[in-house]
């Protein structure tokens, strides 16, 4: 029956889209670590990889959108789901942009800040990963969304704290002002991933309530 067939196709595409975003978050974490370890080849490989993933995510979200409209699926939640996918797609776009900036500017990160950037990257990765888990729950068990959303907020707050500490340490150091400004910019760049994850989480909280009523 084509009704169930088209639903299965979209279900699969949404799953694949979320896999792609989760994989993007992993690539982000390994890319940041590779950069900090000066593993140049590994870092460039992650840039190529994130480009492919971002492209795939774009294609998948467009296909989902077209299927939802052409088959008039989930009329009640169509707008919410498309908004959710668009904002989740922003995470992988931000990951790509962040890694690309590292590749373009190649900032010199002094050893004393290495651990700070590593921790910031980890917190941002965790926030992105947690929001993908919440998004999956929205589709399968809306009551479970609330249980996973707190993790996203937790890691976003953690990323905020790490970033704040890191920026203060940078500006308290003896580095030149231009260097300090560049390092602050990169702290923001990494932290932004968790901000994007939180934006998705805020929407999910409302959509889950709507779905449960």
């Amino acid at each position, binding site marked *: 029956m084509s*009704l169930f067939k*088209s639903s*299965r196709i979209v279900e699969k595409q949404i799953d694949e889209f979320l896999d792609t975003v989760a994989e993007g978050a992993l690539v982000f974490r390994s890319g940041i670590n590779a950069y900090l370890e000066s593993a140049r080849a590994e870092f460039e490989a992650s840039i190529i990889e994130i480009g492919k993933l971002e492209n795939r995510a774009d294609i998948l979200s467009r296909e989902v959108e077209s299927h939802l409209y052409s088959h008039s*699926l*989930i009329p009640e*939640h169509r707008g919410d789901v498309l908004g959710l996918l668009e904002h989740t797609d922003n995470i992988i776009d931000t990951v790509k942009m962040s890694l690309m900036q590292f590749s373009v500017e190649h900032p010199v990160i002094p050893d004393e800040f290495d651990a700070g950037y590593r921790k910031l990257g980890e917190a941002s990765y965790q926030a992105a990963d947690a929001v993908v888990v919440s998004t999956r729950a929205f*589709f399968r068990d809306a009551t479970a969304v609330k249980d996973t959303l707190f993790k996203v907020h937790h890691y976003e707050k953690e990323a905020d704290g790490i970033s704040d500490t890191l920026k203060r340490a940078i500006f308290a150091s003896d580095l030149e002002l231009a260097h300090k400004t560049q390092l602050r910019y990169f702290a923001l760049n990494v932290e932004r991933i968790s901000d994007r994850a939180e934006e998705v989480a805020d929407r999910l909280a409302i959509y889950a309530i709507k779905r449960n009523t």
Partner: protein
Amino acid sequence: MGLLLFLSSGLFLGWSLGANDAANVFGTAVGTRMVRFRTAAVICAVFIVLGATLSGAGAAHTLGRLGAVNTLAGAFTVALAAALTTFWMTRLKMPVSTSQAIVGAIIGWNIYAASVTDTDSLTRIVLTWVACPLISGTLAVVLFMLIRWLINTTNPHLLRLDAMTRAGLILAGAFGSYSLGANNIANVMGVFVPENPFGDLSVFGLFVLSGTQQLFLLGSVAIGVGVFTYSERVMRTVGGGLVRLSPVPALVVVLAHSITLFLFASEGLEHFLASHHLPTFPLVPVSSSQAVVGAIVGISLFKGAPIRYRVLGEISVGWITTPIIAGVVAFLMLFFVDNVFDQRVHQDMRYRIDRIVVEELARQGVADAGLDEIAGTTFANGVKFKRDLETATTLAEDDIHRVIELSRLGHWMIDPGILAEKIDTRWLTAAQLDALRTLADRRYERSWLMHRELAATSPDWSERPPAAIHRSWNKELAAKLVFLDRVFRLERRDEP
């Protein structure tokens, strides 16, 4: 040609029914955007045609409610009045009950023809307003709780839930449309069955469509056209005007509506339960429009969803005014058709209490000294006859109706020609047909004498003891007897 003209009002009634009643089966599906209007209209029209042609002709050889109206011009006018009322309500986007419009119009005819109104019809209308929304609303809440528990337990993917809900809405809609066609076609076309101009038609040698089936096919096509051309407005009212429903409650509403009709109006189910010695559901009058609105309100109250009380008030007022308006319109139109177009809209009914009537009444346990007072007098006005009976006797309402029924005069003859042409032999049992053939050419002055002789000739023409298990037999028998009264009555042809 005359018949075709008369048929047009039946077709208009069919069109009005399609325009209004399709909303009950597909309104919530279209209102929640789960099914496109065009898709709903195609499914609805196809299944109405199938239901009317396949099941309608089998189960409802009856004359429908309009069978009480005893001339073709009268039936034309009554159908037209009901159709105009339903059409007007549809224009106002109000879901109303077409059958109530018909009952209202028949009461209008009764008043015009000075015929006695069956108080059961009135009670039925009023009971429907109360019983049906209550039953359906309660069922909707129970069903909603059950489905919500099921969803929370199985946690289907949002898209799979969407597909299942959509499939449920389409299946329930198709089933509802089939029932709509099967149950209502007799109201639309039944009255024209005795005058049916169509003979048997072989379709490419594959199957044979009887004359009745062709007539019902024509009526169901009119219903289908009504669905396509005009039902969208009422669908939007049912689906979103009253309360903004989401898809799962929309499905619950359609299911609650179908189950209400099935449990509380299905004689088939009652017969099945009774024949298996199971307790039966009480048969209460239910209407699909009221079942749908009751379910929507029930589920909204349970969920605490905001109801647009202004729309609900308008719909409720529509239910009350529909039979009244239909009655008034029918009365006025009958006056015009009778006096301006010079068409006979009713046969004069005459009543007389003779010795044979008194004996039969005594046999049935009805006796009153007052009967002798008016015995021998011929009454040409049913209402006056009833009034006189009420004054002269102390009989209860039921017994008075029995006296009126037994006192009705007329001329009946079991005409072998009509027996061969107008009677669908598949509808009657072999024993019933044999009894009719045995009594061919006999004449009767009262229809019950014909019934009594038929019963004496074959037990298949006898009423069975009043028990739930026999109810459908007795109802079918009563329908057959009304049909015989109609086709074998001589006045239709002989009187000027």
